């Protein structure tokens, strides 16, 4: 059975149906890019997959996957302006789902958190206050937290938004490595070039969404059109 399967999902809000009858299977080791225009319902789908909201219809079935094995990077983290939290505290809180009934983090988890901070180049900010960082630095801190949380699946909502080109490159390299080690990746992104390069599958969200293999998608007329449009729009 697939790791995550969507069965006849209808996605939307009480008075607004975004799309109907979406079914797909995501298997272990897949690298899925979720693409589509603004406001088509990518974030809503991801929140549904995570069980943060209920689909209007249909269901999400997971096989042998616990929530505590998932890393999630929200599109926007509404942190109140005054929140006093150091970078270290935030990254470490990535492990919170795996604490269970244990009250404290282990030494190994603290070490892993430090490695995650190093990977995103925020280890020298460890004791800085999160609210005093730049937007890109904040995004990197949240990425490090997500990395701590994920053991099987990484769900990321526009992870490269706000990252500089160097960190973006490094980020894709890191995710590719994790993917090769068996991590399943589901990433919402407007970076079509990266989708072409790294994805195994494309989930194109629109009125009638499509879930297909990457090569098949970009070979199809529609995929071609969207990618040309997107790249022109970018450049």
């Amino acid at each position, binding site marked *: 059975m697939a790791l995550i399967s969507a069965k006849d999902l209808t996605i939307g809000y009480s008075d607004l149906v975004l799309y109907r009858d979406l079914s797909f299977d995501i298997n272990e080791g897949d690298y899925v890019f979720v693409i589509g225009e603004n406001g088509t319902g990518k974030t809503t789908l991801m929140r549904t997959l995570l069980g943060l909201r209920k689909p209007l219809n249909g269901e999400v079935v997971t096989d042998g996957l616990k929530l505590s094995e998932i890393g999630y990077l929200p599109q926007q983290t509404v942190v109140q302006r005054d929140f006093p939290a150091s970078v270290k505290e935030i990254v470490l809180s990535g492990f919170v789902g795996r604490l269970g009934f244990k009250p404290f*983090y282990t030494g190994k988890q603290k070490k892993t958190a430090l490695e995650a901070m190093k990977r995103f180049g925020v280890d020298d900010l460890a004791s800085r206050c999160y609210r005093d960082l730049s937007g890109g630095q904040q995004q990197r801190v949240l990425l490090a937290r997500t990395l701590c949380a994920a053991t099987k699946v990484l769900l990321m909502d526009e992870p490269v938004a706000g990252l500089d080109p160097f960190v973006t490159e490094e980020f894709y390299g890191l995710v590719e490595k994790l993917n090769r080690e068996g991590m399943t990746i589901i990433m919402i992104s407007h970076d079509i070039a990266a989708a072409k390069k790294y994805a195994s599958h494309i989930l194109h969200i629109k009125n009638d969404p499509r879930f297909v293999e990457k090569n098949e998608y970009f070979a199809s007329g529609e995929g071609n059109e969207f990618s040309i449009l997107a790249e022109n729009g970018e450049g």
Partner: protein
Amino acid sequence: MELLIEYLSYPFVRYAIIVGVLIAFCSSLLGVTLVLKRMSYIGDGLSHVAFGALAIASVLKITNNTLIILPVTVLAAILLLAFGKNAAIKGDAAIAMLSVGSLAFGYLLMNKFSTASNLAGDVCSTLFGSTSILTLSKESVLLCFILSIFVVVVFILFYNKIFAVTFDETFAKATGVRTGMYNLLIAVIIAVIIVLAMNLVGSLLISALVIFPAMASMRVFKSFKAVTVSSAVFSVFCALAGIIISIIAGTPTGATIVACDAVMFGLFCVVGAIRQ
């Protein structure tokens, strides 16, 4: 000074100070969470509910009134949390109704049924704290002690989860934390703290005890841990200073403690501004 030393030679004075410090310590712990989760108004509403419950207890002539106030306040906390989720009933409006309603009913009850000769004094002391916590009975001292320990232990055991749920509830929920349960836990602890703090400063001044230390510390410190520790130290110091001053100067304990909190808050603001 002599007066103070004389007072300190009485065991009940020492107990009162210990209890006062413990209560101040507990009530500072959740301050940051309350302020940042915008739950501080829940604390305010609950303190009025506690006042209503106290009025019922005194009408029913129950000696250990905490036994009534505690369950009623905990229940109200759970209800308010549920209301807050329900978009149909505006959370803050619900709280306002509940708190004003309990104030009114509480006063009505006390006015109609109280047999005490000095009603105004009674009402005043439940609102602003007894003129001195030295009048606490031995059982209530013991109960305060047990409840304080309970709050501190729960806070330490769930510190990391409380942090995660306060900082980013969505993330916590997505990675498998039962956030509903922890919100409930936070609400229950608030209720317990309020019942405790009512003994020290009375129901109108409770919020001060919860909010001042957190707001002050947030201006100076940059991590959750540092703010928590600083709040605790801040609160304990002010409680101690307040109690001692109130003994020497014969001022009402609750108001004196809160006045100390306010002055210290000003000081922290200055320090915070200099640090910037």
